């Protein structure tokens, strides 16, 4: 992210390039249970972002010496497919960016999981970005929480995330790729929606203390909307599963 010399991100009536208001999320659609092999899975489209998440576990830890005596081992791998980026093909080897994001996503999900309930097991969360258009890490978290629930992992709450950006001096919800590239700052935030606790928070760019407080409020509001879509997706999934179990066609 570099300061956006010359690229106008807001129209004269205060709308963003894609017509959104500053506090407006892009269209978000989540589907749970999209894969057969995974124990849980979810697919999210947030604007043009397309991300698929699979969850395996709880299962025996492999390699064994990584098992934890008092709790579940959660592992996350966030990766971008080579053709998911707007720029030239990305090498398939994990970048430093992907390594860091995998870590912060794991730490964003852990607060919501009853890790102590399955000691000596692992749960693996695999995230593949098929198409990227800004805010992929938070969209990944939103989908991963649904995939964990789909896998039946006991959780104290879901987790959903949104990025708060700064464009032309104003805070804006859910940065798109071009806003991330030319904006003045990016602050990805994830929360447990019901509990209202922050499980991921990062930032680059420059923000005043007041802007940080405001960003937290804007994030909360957006996250509650994402939470509705998460619940809808899980409800739909459960009704399909139930229908299938009752012998109907799914």
């Amino acid at each position: 992210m570099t300061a956006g010399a010359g690229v106008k991100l807001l129209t004269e009536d205060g709308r963003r390039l894609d017509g959104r208001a500053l506090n407006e999320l892009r269209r978000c659609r989540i589907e749970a249970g999209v894969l057969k092999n995974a124990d849980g899975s979810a697919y999210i489209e947030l604007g043009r972002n397309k991300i698929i998440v699979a969850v395996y576990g709880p299962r025996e830890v492999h390699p064994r010496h990584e098992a934890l005596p008092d709790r579940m081992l959660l592992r996350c791998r966030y990766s971008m497919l080579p053709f998911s980026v707007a720029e030239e093909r990305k090498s398939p080897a994990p970048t430093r960016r992907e390594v860091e994001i995998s870590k912060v996503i794991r730490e964003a999900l852990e607060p919501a999981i009853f890790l102590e309930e399955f000691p000596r097991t692992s749960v693996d969360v695999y995230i593949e970005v098929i198409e990227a258009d800004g805010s992929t890490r938070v969209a990944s978290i939103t989908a991963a929480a649904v995939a964990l629930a789909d896998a039946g992992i006991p959780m104290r709450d879901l987790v959903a995330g949104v990025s708060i950006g700064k464009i032309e001096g104003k805070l804006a919800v859910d940065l798109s790729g071009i806003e991330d590239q030319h904006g003045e700052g990016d602050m990805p935030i994830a929360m447990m929606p019901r509990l209202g606790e922050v499980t991921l928070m990062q930032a680059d760019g420059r923000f005043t203390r007041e802007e940080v407080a405001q960003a937290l409020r804007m994030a909360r509001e957006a996250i509650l909307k994402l939470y509705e879509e998460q619940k809808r997706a899980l409800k739909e999934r459960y009704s399909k599963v139930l229908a299938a179990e009752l012998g109907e066609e799914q």
Partner: protein
Amino acid sequence: MSERVYTVVPAPRREAIRSMAKRGERVDGRKPEEFREVKLEVGVAGNADGSARVTLGHTKVIVGVKASLGQPFPDAPNAGVQIVHAELIPLASPIFEPGPPDENDVELARIIDRGLRSAPALKLEDLAVVPGKQVWRVFIDIYPIDHDGNFIDASGLAAMGALLSAKIPKVTAAPDGTIVKAEEKVPLPIADIPVFVTIAKIGDVLVVDPCYEEELVMDARITFALTRDNHVCAIQKGGRGSFTPEEIERALEMALNVAPRLRSALENLRQAGAPQSA
């Protein structure tokens, strides 16, 4: 260099599948020569220049194509470059582990590469912009995302779907060698549309398009890539067993029989696209 540890099928289940095969039956109710239903969607990854998702039973494969200008290979200075990469990511199956490509990833990528190259699918010579200096480098990235057997055939279909749906900028080389990219996008130059058909041997029985359970109990498999005019443009035998020459000829006949149906979805794509150079 070691074998991937496949989930083991319990012996009774194994025997059941093998006896079914002897009676001409299969675990999912298909006939031996029957390919599963194929679903082909294109444009599934908007940042790729071309992309496709193939669903084959529960098997799902995504392929994305990205083209960029770069140097040719020294041994083919007047041709574009085709690079196929495949990654059996752990998202797709509990039997896949994270890490650098192993022999299974490499074999899958190389089979697809050979079939596309020998057909040939891409007219590589039409992808040289400034011969010897600047050519299109076409990356074909294969990512299976759900595994119910026969990744080769699904990957081949998805790769061709992605290539046929791809659009790249029209470029012109000025006399001084500078390259101008137009806004206008053109399809990739396609010469042929190969399809891949895999036949598994279970006991003495040959079956087309094995599902995952069949792969676990099969003796061996053989894949044929077939051109539109019924040439074989790649072969790959796999697995710990062997084939008699007669079985190979029979397998090829089975493959030739199913190829046209597999190719028809791709041909439709092509007709839907912009005028092609071939």
